[in-house]
């Protein structure tokens, strides 16, 4: 049992700086200025990063971390406090719950799953916006899903490089 726990959460304290840096970088990408036409197709970098890390290190990067990062996104973007936090926590839950299956998936199938998760994520945001009385055009919700799915292979490739670094130092 002890052994299992250490294997699963193999990104131990002190070795997590690259992971945290990747999350901060994703936050900055989410804030970076884009031309107006590209704005609606901005992938949700932070969500993709969180999906990757909670799939890879479910012991360290689970719903709690996702929730806190979501709260930071809420403040950074000025959305309703707790909106992204809730969506992040739900997606992290799904990811952690099925992380063993997700790791087995070939890239194509994994990308399709990420598409479904991003759609669920945007649906939660859409739902909360509806309750709060904020209406935005539909493309604002679908744009990030499509672009996020397309960029996912690249994101997972880059983050996998980071993961191997974290792993090698172990």
């Amino acid at each position: 049992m002890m052994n299992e726990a250490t294997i699963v959460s193999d990104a131990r304290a002190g070795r997590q700086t690259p992971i945290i840096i990747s999350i901060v970088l994703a936050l900055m990408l989410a804030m970076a200025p884009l031309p107006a036409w590209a704005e609606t197709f901005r992938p949700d970098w932070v969500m993709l990063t969180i999906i990757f890390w909670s799939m890879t290190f479910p012991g360290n990067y689970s719903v709690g971390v996702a929730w806190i990062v979501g709260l930071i996104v809420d403040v950074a973007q000025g959305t309703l406090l707790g909106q992204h936090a809730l969506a992040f926590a739900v997606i992290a839950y799904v990811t952690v719950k099925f992380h063993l299956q997700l790791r087995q998936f070939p890239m194509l199938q994994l990308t399709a799953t990420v598409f479904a998760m991003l759609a669920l994520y945007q649906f939660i945001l859409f739902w909360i916006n509806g309750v709060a009385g904020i209406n935005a055009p539909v493309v604002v919700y679908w744009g990030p899903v499509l672009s996020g799915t397309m960029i996912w292979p690249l994101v997972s490739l880059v983050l996998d490089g980071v993961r191997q670094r974290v792993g090698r130092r172990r």
Partner: protein
Amino acid sequence: MAAAKSKKQHRSPYSPALGLRLLLLAGLSILIQYIDNRDNHLDAVRKTIGATVYPLRVIVDAPVSTWRWLGETTASRNELQLENSRLKTERLLTQARLQRYAALEAENARLRDMLEARTRVREQVRVAEILSVSADPFRHVLVIDKGTNAGVYDGQAIVDANGVVGQVIEAGVASSMCLLISDPGHDLPVEVNRSGLRTIARGTGNFNQLDLPFLPNNADIEPGDLLVTSGLGGAFPAGYPVAIVDSVRRIPQEPFASVTAVPSAALNQVREIMLIWPDASADSATDPVGVDTEAPDDAAAATPGDTVAEPGDDERGDDRE
């Protein structure tokens, strides 16, 4: 990833508590969303997290502002000379117009005094720059580089050289978030400059269009009419240009005409905006930021004594419309 896969073929030991944790966090986030949507009780939380986000904003903004700075410093001498002479001409013209304006303003104050109407309050303005940071994808917002440390407050009006841009919705410590008048959730009380007709201008989610949904078919409004703020909502000072009416369609069987207007301010390409403090007639000792006013003396002289305290109370309310 292949290496990781082979080692981790087992159930994780923390799964049982996972659902519970999610439920707790989901409950918590619904609770804080409820509180956040109702009141501003969570301002402290926002400000604390916002302070940690601020450095990120500065870093993200840095490449763009560096690029602009480079462009300015490496501009050729010829270009600079051209720009300089253009600006000089512009300044001359503006000053000439301002002279006339000063005389008109004095006359206006005198007439209002004769009518015993309340003198229009003068405003203080301060320039703020827009950070190249993108924010809430669902709304039309922008981030400016001034916050509560510069006296910015929630609900403050912001304008650019051509017209009203929006209002501050979240004043952070060193940067603030502003809602544009083009946001679908933003309603602005306006009046038609030509006829004095008062109505509401509503954002459409399109930077180049505002809707005037509550005008009856027989309303006195035409394409080309200038809309200015009426000052009725309390958040915006009166008399700032907002938009120009571009189409009026009167449909006989509908109760309201469909009227659209084009905002005067270039909402999606502003770089600098002006923050307005609707207060200067009161003594400058109590003013929030100590920005110098144009002529506080004659404003105070023209203001009847009993109305001096008023603007601070009713004009600086932070209600959002």
